[in-house]
């Protein structure tokens, strides 16, 4: 009797949600994401790529290589024929560098904001519009304490909006703020700057140098894409944090960002 009423209730709910939710009682593995290339082979080897239908955070300090990775990701997506959007919170995108990085500028909708409020509202509108392969939100130059004031439900809303869509939501910021809403969190650090110096034999200007680029170290702070087995067990009594917050050697890669004249 109870089983039949349960089945009736289930069928009634399914009927009510028909057209809005497809198979509401079917189990879906929320960690099974389609991954696409970041445009940097080392990063692809590290995380497998950027997840579609999820939020990815790239954090790091100023000059840590976040913009280089962002440009590579946008170039990779636009090269595949996808239409992308860049929400530039402080209007700092350089189209010339973007073009040199391989971004098809004709497929990139550039939204030049003046503050974070505009950036968040613009992101909301773009996600609701749908159809973009990637929506990148560049909050790099916004102070961390300002981004920290963004209510958590804003990130939740973004995550829910991109779920079950082929859209990649990429946040570039100084610190991770979206907490568990982000399926992948990467932290970048700048390494040594690489200069090419003129040889002593050549008859050059005494201080002739050329900036070749710099190395970037990337760590996986959090990832729902490939969770190591040992990290799935969390000691609730001791309140230990998941091990994912501590980067391991396997969760670290180094790649080089070259200047456009060095390519």
């Amino acid at each position: 009797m109870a089983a039949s009423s349960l089945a009736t209730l289930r069928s009634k709910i399914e009927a009510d949600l028909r057209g809005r939710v497809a198979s509401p009682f079917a189990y879906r593995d929320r960690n099974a994401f389609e991954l696409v290339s970041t445009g940097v082979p080392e990063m692809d080897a590290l995380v497998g790529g950027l997840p579609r239908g999820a939020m990815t955070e790239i954090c790091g300090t100023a000059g840590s290589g976040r913009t280089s990775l962002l440009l590579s990701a946008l170039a990779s997506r636009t090269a595949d024929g996808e239409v992308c959007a860049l929400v530039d919170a402080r209007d700092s995108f350089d189209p010339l560098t973007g073009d040199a990085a391989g971004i098809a500028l004709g497929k990139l909708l550039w939204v030049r904001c003046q503050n974070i409020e505009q950036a968040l509202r613009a992101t909301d509108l773009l996600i609701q519009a749908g159809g973009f392969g990637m929506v990148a939100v560049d909050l790099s130059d916004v102070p961390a304490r300002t981004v920290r004031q963004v209510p958590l439900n804003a990130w939740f809303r973004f995550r829910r909006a991109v779920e079950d869509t082929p859209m990649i939501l990429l946040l570039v910021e100084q610190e991770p703020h979206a907490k568990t809403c982000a399926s992948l969190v990467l932290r970048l650090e700048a390494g040594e700057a690489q200069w090419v110096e003129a040889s002593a034999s050549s008859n050059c200007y005494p201080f002739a140098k050329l900036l070749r680029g710099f190395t970037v170290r990337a760590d996986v702070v959090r990832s729902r894409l490939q969770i190591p087995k040992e990290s799935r067990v969390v000691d609730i009594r001791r309140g230990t944090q998941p091990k994912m917050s501590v980067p391991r050697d396997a969760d670290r890669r180094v790649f080089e960002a070259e200047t456009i004249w060095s390519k």
Partner: protein
Amino acid sequence: MGFACVYIADFLVQAVVRGQRALGAGALALLGGAPPLWSVVAANPAAFEAGIQLGMTKAQVAQFGTVQICARSEAQEKAAHAALLDAAWSVSPRVEDTAADTVVLDLEGLSALLGADENIARELARRVAAIGLAARVAVAANIEVAIHAARGFPGITIIPAGEERRRLGPLPVGVLTTETETLEILERWGVETLQALAALPVLQLSERLGQEGVRLSELARGVRKRALVLAQPSSSFAEEMELDDAVEELEPLSFLLGRLLDQLCARLEARALAVRAVRVRFELQPSFEKDFQTLKEELRRKPDVKQYEKVLTLPVPMRNAKTLLKLLRLQLQGDPPAAPIQKIYMTADAAAPRVAQNGLFVPCGPDPEKLEVTIARLGKLVGEGNLGCAELVNSHRPESFRMTRFVVAVEQNRQRGKSEPNVKEHTDACPAVTGLRVMRPAQSVRVELRDELPVRVYLRGMRGEVVAASGPWRSSGDWWQEDAWQQEEWDLEIEFTAPSVVVAQHAAPALRQERSEQSQPNKQSRTDSQHGLYRIYYDALRQRWFVRGVYA
């Protein structure tokens, strides 16, 4: 079967009701004529039932409490007639513009497409109903028979060949002619129906009524034939609406605009066309002050009517009235009219609808209609100039690019592998490019030189030692113009060691605020931001140093 006739009964009333649907519910009388001498020129059946008669004055009609009074609108009649023609052209390319309320179509060859005559007639009635008019449709082998059947019988009438005389027989002779003199003669003879008229001998009828009698006899017997006079399809789509009370608020205006857009889109759909641009023109109510000032000067002359015009240009042709209304609303919100609106003109530039067939393996892009609305909303949020697609300009001047309108072009939905020639192919094997974060506007910086080499930099209240420098990279251009430029660029690796009090005191308020944010107890970020790769330049014309951006 040969021809179909579409007739709109009570055309004047239906034309007005088409623009104002709320009027269609009850009894309605239309007034026409010069303003002091208003009289009833048309009314719907409910009004006639209530006792309204043609020619009644406005005061007489006003005594009927249940009858609504409305002015006849020639503009709406014109629009309704154009819409009727559009609906007819959507079925057949051979259409005769018989009268304002009547069109005739040649049905030759349509049976393969639409089926039997009854189906064609039903489809015609449906398409005319879609433009807001209730039609009578008649199909016959003869043009005149189809016209008279449509005017005489309600609904859909199919008259097979050979039965014209029998089927037209019960109709009154009034459907054949409107000449009062002829009708009076026939009435005196006791001829009231076409059947009675057809029974009269033609020779005697000719002797008494002349050629008109012969013509009427042929029409009554259904044997008069003529060729179809074809009308040329019009490329203009216009609707207009005159308002009894001027509209000030956006909400009621949106309601009216939505109705006009619905009518335009229905007409365009009938012609299998889409909208490339919508032009809206408002006739604004003149202000009282102006009227008063110009009263003496322009007493005999009609005062100039203020106009407000808005053009909505679309990147891709579309036909969705809701989307168009959203876009128009966003435009009007940004730039509202300065005075109440008393008349609305709306015209549409027609274009062939876009092809929506994508390749099977092509990534889906944003829906163009949705994208256009989103771009309009974003434009309202960040400003029109801060949104779009960056296009590089063929110049050596730094920051030489322009913003263009973002359009998901058709070629973007091309098959993979056929890339645009100017787009660089991105391969995963190529290394990442060092990103440059540009400071807009360029930030002023103080630089100390030693042997022409930058050695110390004061930026944002911080003092930095130059670890490595590359430059100078000299460039100049546009010296023949007012905005000439001459710069020396440097790439610097800077190690910030100590705060610079001197610079902080003279810094702009924005810089001081930024510095105070940086000096918050966030040790990690402060320590990390003390080292960086910067691109600075010396503006030789202004003789000052600026930071162009940071490598990041």
